[in-house]
């Protein structure tokens, strides 16, 4: 098979997409729904009017923050499954600040909450790092356990200590005072400009930091071969911890956006699965930072649109995970097919 590369490369990208779409369609048909109607409702749910587009951006912000953070840890060779918990830790810290730090000026109050969120996420990620570097617990297992622990802690805080004395809902904390909310661009376009700018800066910063700085080089060396990196004098442990802290801080920012803007309160499972979406995004991007913002935008549109699908057509949102999972799996498989061809390695 000798197709010119200009044809074969897009083909290898499109083929998985087509297969994933076909299999997802089968799943929809299995439940007796109309796939075309699902697609149309999805599109309307994402782009029908500015409010819908704002919804897409509000999902794009935390998804991109978490994904770009994961690119850092993947570059360092770490499977940071704990990103979901790091978002929750950020959300808890930001909520604590929003609820209990009585700062009069709204700007400082919001900024303090966001900073708390980043610190919370970074701290929780550092725990994964210390478990790995000091105690030899693989980051996958440390991450899974810490995810469950922080989620339980959140449920405890929500149902107990953070309830108002007069009693409230066990499902969420009392709403934060309006001064603690992230200010939005306009009433019709409720996107927090501050977080949008922060996300763009973070994405651009990570793209360049991984490419052109000594830090990026050290991370890549540590990720490719920790032993040789160590022998060459790269501080491998420090690189791993730093990568985790940065990823955790970004995930914490993502968690802050969820509580300080999306919900205006802390609730269980505040992340809405963003951490797991982000892990698949990192795989889709083949661990490179550059494609991340576009991929996250596509996924954010699908997720935002799917709310409408689930409301109107009664189709569960787990369909997105199914589609994304099939897509990544098929991409891995076609990548394998490509490599096992005779001219492998000449890509």
């Amino acid at each position, binding site marked *: 098979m000798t197709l010119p590369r200009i044809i074969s490369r897009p083909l290898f990208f499109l083929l998985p997409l087509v297969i994933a779409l076909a299999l997802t369609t089968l799943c929809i048909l*299995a439940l007796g729904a109309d796939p075309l109607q699902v697609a149309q409702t999805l599109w309307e749910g994402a782009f029908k009017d500015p409010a819908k587009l704002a919804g897409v951006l509000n999902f794009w912000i935390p998804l991109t923050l978490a994904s770009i953070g994961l690119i850092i840890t993947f570059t360092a060779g770490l499977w940071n499954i704990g990103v979901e918990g790091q978002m929750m830790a950020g959300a808890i810290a930001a909520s604590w600040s929003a609820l209990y730090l009585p700062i009069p000026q709204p700007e400082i109050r919001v900024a303090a909450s966001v900073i708390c969120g980043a610190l919370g996420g970074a701290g929780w990620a550092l725990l994964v790092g210390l478990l790995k570097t000091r105690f030899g617990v693989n980051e996958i297992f440390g991450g899974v356990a810490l995810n469950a622990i922080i989620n339980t802690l959140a449920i405890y805080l929500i149902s107990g200590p953070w309830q108002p004395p007069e009693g409230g809902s066990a499902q969420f904390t009392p709403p934060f005072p309006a001064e603690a909310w992230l200010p939005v661009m306009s009433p019709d376009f409720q996107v927090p400009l501050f977080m949008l700018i922060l996300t763009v800066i973070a994405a651009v910063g990570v793209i360049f930091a991984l490419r052109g700085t000594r830090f990026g080089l050290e991370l890549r060396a540590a990720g490719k071969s920790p032993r040789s990196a160590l022998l060459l004098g790269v501080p491998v442990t420090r690189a791993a911890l730093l990568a985790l802290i940065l990823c955790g801080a970004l995930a914490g920012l993502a968690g802050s956006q969820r509580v300080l803007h999306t919900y205006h309160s802390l609730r269980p499972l505040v992340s809405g699965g963003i951490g797991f979406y982000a892990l698949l995004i990192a*795989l889709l991007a083949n661990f490179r930072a550059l494609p991340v913002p576009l991929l996250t935008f596509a996924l954010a549109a699908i997720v935002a649109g799917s709310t409408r699908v689930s409301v109107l057509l009664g189709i569960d949102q787990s369909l997105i995970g*199914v589609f994304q999972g099939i897509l990544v*799996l098929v991409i*891995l498989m076609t990548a394998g097919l490509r490599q096992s061809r005779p001219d492998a390695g000449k890509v």
Partner: protein
Amino acid sequence: MNESLLNMLNSIVANATPLVIATMGEVITERAGVINLSLNGSILLSAMVGVAAASLSGSAIIGIGAAALMGGLIALLLAFTSIRLRQDQVAVGFVLTLLCGDLARFLGKPFNNLPNPIIVPNMPIPVLSEIPVIGRVFFQHDPFVYFSGLLVFAVWWWLYRTRPGLTLRAIGERPEAAFSRGARVNRLRYMYTGIGGALVGVAGAAYSLGIKAGWASSPTMDGDGWIALAIVIFAGWHPFRVVFGAYLLAAMRAVASGIQQSPDINIPPVLLNMLPWLLMLGTLILVSGGVVERVVKLMPTRFQDGARTLLRSTPPAAIGTRFDGD
């Protein structure tokens, strides 16, 4: 003996059973050199498939068969993608665990909270169940429990007392050496990954047709797959230690729910849900090299060697690697 204590021991054995079956599957797989990280998703999807097949056919046996088939297929997909298509086992397993979990939630919707879930009935074993205490604790259960017990001895016997079992361990430790002695490394890895996956599928059925009958959109066994993976590490890939780990965890849970019910102890019940995860972290810290060495050094010299073998957890040397020989 106290009646409520007997009940508690009985329920510990019942609750540990799916974990025992799943971990046995994973022990076989990992001993052959393949990491099947898809356990959590596999268990969910096969549990759902088990409920679906059982309720459509009206037969629990067909449900168990379908669940085993599902688990086996997922594992073979992992084996194919990592062996033939040479992709990273961790990546593939991770994608599969997410995908299967979401598939289970999505496709399982028509089977959410069915009114009369099909359940595998309790079958006390005639003579053995009459033995005081032991009969009550071990021999008054559903067949999954007896299966798990037989399975443990079967896996141990196969691994340590048979020739093919020696080959199985060899392809996980030194695939090149095994290959030069005539073992078809990758073919065997397919086989053991498939068998291990089928056992994981049976574990799923042991939840959904056994102790946690039925299917719900937020399944109660979610997370147990990760715990099972951790138990395998904690147990040093040895069948008997694995059983100990699974029972230890089930006992912890029983104690936690006991605390929850007792009026004198004042711990918020939600926080008790952290216990299995803290236990998981604690045991992983314990078995990782450094800590064991420090603990062993504190012991009298003549116990040190024994303690080291007992506590140490060394993974199969070639775990997660690829073998390109055949």
